[in-house]
């Protein structure tokens, strides 16, 4: 039996807006094992991103508990939280690179703020750039890079401080299919070589099927199905299958209404 690395129990989150309150997470229970690639899939608005942001406390949930590697995330002091965040890497759909800094400085940033000595920073940055295949772009600015290259910088920045966990929030959703595949391959390779645990949030079924060991399906703030990717995809009676079959039909209908067909 593998260790439970992330343990989320009974997580609730409600947003209060001008037009009333929005119940985004309604009692999430989730266990992710050490070293696995775990996928969370759901439609937009299902609460995926909120869930991911609760794990490094970019969002503060209303109730419930989150443990990452035995650390109770929600009870950390502000100072402890900053240190804990440095052990959790995160990559984003929009890359969120620092455009004022070169690729080298983007990757070095997490180490710079941790006051790591310069020669150690250099060693780590070069090592990480090598891993993600950016050695020839170190002096470039993100503005001049392609989407795939930008996400490689994002991954390198997330990995440079040797985190135990990588949160991937729709990391491939802005990329074309070929680049998506390259990035997913890179994530798989990193997972194999470093043993890092990856939590992948996406709405792309294919990305999950290609990359993940286990998955959970999030619908309307609740997890409706959890299991190994193989089991869920091979079981025609699984709720996931029926949900995505429904999506497909809806998509077909919408495109017919637009007169384009599929």
């Amino acid at each position, binding site marked *: 039996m593998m260790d439970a690395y992330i343990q989320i129990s009974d997580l609730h989150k409600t947003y209060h807006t001008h037009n009333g309150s929005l119940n985004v997470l309604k009692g999430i229970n989730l266990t992710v094992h050490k070293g696995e690639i775990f996928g969370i899939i759901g439609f937009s608005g299902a609460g995926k991103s909120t869930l991911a942001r609760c794990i490094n406390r*970019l969002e503060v949930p209303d109730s419930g508990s989150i443990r990452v590697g035995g650390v109770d995330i929600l009870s950390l002091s502000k100072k402890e939280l900053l240190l804990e965040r440095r052990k959790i890497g995160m990559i984003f759909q929009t890359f969120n690179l620092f455009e*004022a800094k070169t690729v080298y400085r983007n990757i070095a*940033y997490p180490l710079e*703020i941790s006051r790591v000595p310069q020669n150690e920073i250099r060693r780590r940055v070069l090592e990480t750039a090598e891993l993600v295949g950016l050695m020839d772009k170190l002096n470039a600015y993100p503005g001049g890079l392609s989407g795939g290259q930008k996400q490689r910088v994002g991954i390198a920045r997330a990995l440079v401080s040797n985190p135990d966990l990588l949160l991937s929030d729709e990391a491939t959703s802005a990329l074309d299919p070929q680049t998506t595949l390259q990035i997913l391959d890179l994530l798989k390779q990193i997972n194999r070589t470093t043993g890092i645990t990856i939590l992948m949030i996406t709405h792309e079924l294919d990305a999950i099927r290609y990359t993940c060991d286990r998955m959970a399906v999030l619908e309307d703030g609740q997890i409706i199905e959890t299991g190994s990717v193989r089991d869920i995809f091979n079981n025609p009676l699984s709720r996931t299958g029926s949900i995505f079959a429904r999506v497909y039909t809806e998509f077909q209908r919408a495109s017919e209404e637009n007169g384009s067909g599929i």
Partner: protein
Amino acid sequence: MSLLDTPLWEVIKGSFAPEIWQRLKPAIGETLYMVTLSSIIMLVLGLFLGILLTVTNPDGLIPMKILYTGSGWVINCLRSLPQMIMIILMIPVARLFFGKSYGVNACIIAIAASCIPMYARLVESSLLEIAKGKVEAARSIGSTNIQIIFRILIPETAPSLIRGFTVAVIAVISMTALAGMFGAGGIGDIAVRFGYQRFQHDVLFATVYILIILVQLVQWIGNFASKQILKKRNLI
């Protein structure tokens, strides 16, 4: 030379006379001194206030409603005063600091009081332009708020901050000219004393050239600097 008895063309020709420019020389020096010093004070305090407004915003890094509303209110009050009234209001303050209410240094207080709030608003709008995702990424990495402000927020918005500063420096230039009316010295003082009170329109024209050149120069430098940064970052 006055337009009252001399044709326009003659006045324009006369405005290039060496003795006029000889007389203007110290005034140009005073104006440059006032503009430079006021701009530096404005840059430091305006940046500080602008950062304060951005950070304490309800959606900001450290939401502090009272401080945000309070500083916003003070800034709005200062901004609602026309520059001329600000100069009159600052006369006693200048006397308190410098022992006299006229002269180059005294006017810097009025200029600062008038232009700092304006630049603070420009800084605020520049800083708010930053993509929320960049701040979120910096937070996810474990940055402290101070690190986010100085290592992310300011460098990322630098081109826009520079453009705002350019606009503000031009406002400072126009205000130094106005302050000339109230004994601040400089080009404005010359324009008022010779151009307005003595109908020496050739002198007046000469001051106009200087102001136009000064403003053009500041705008050009600002545009150039901001563009160079964007170019370096491959964003244009």
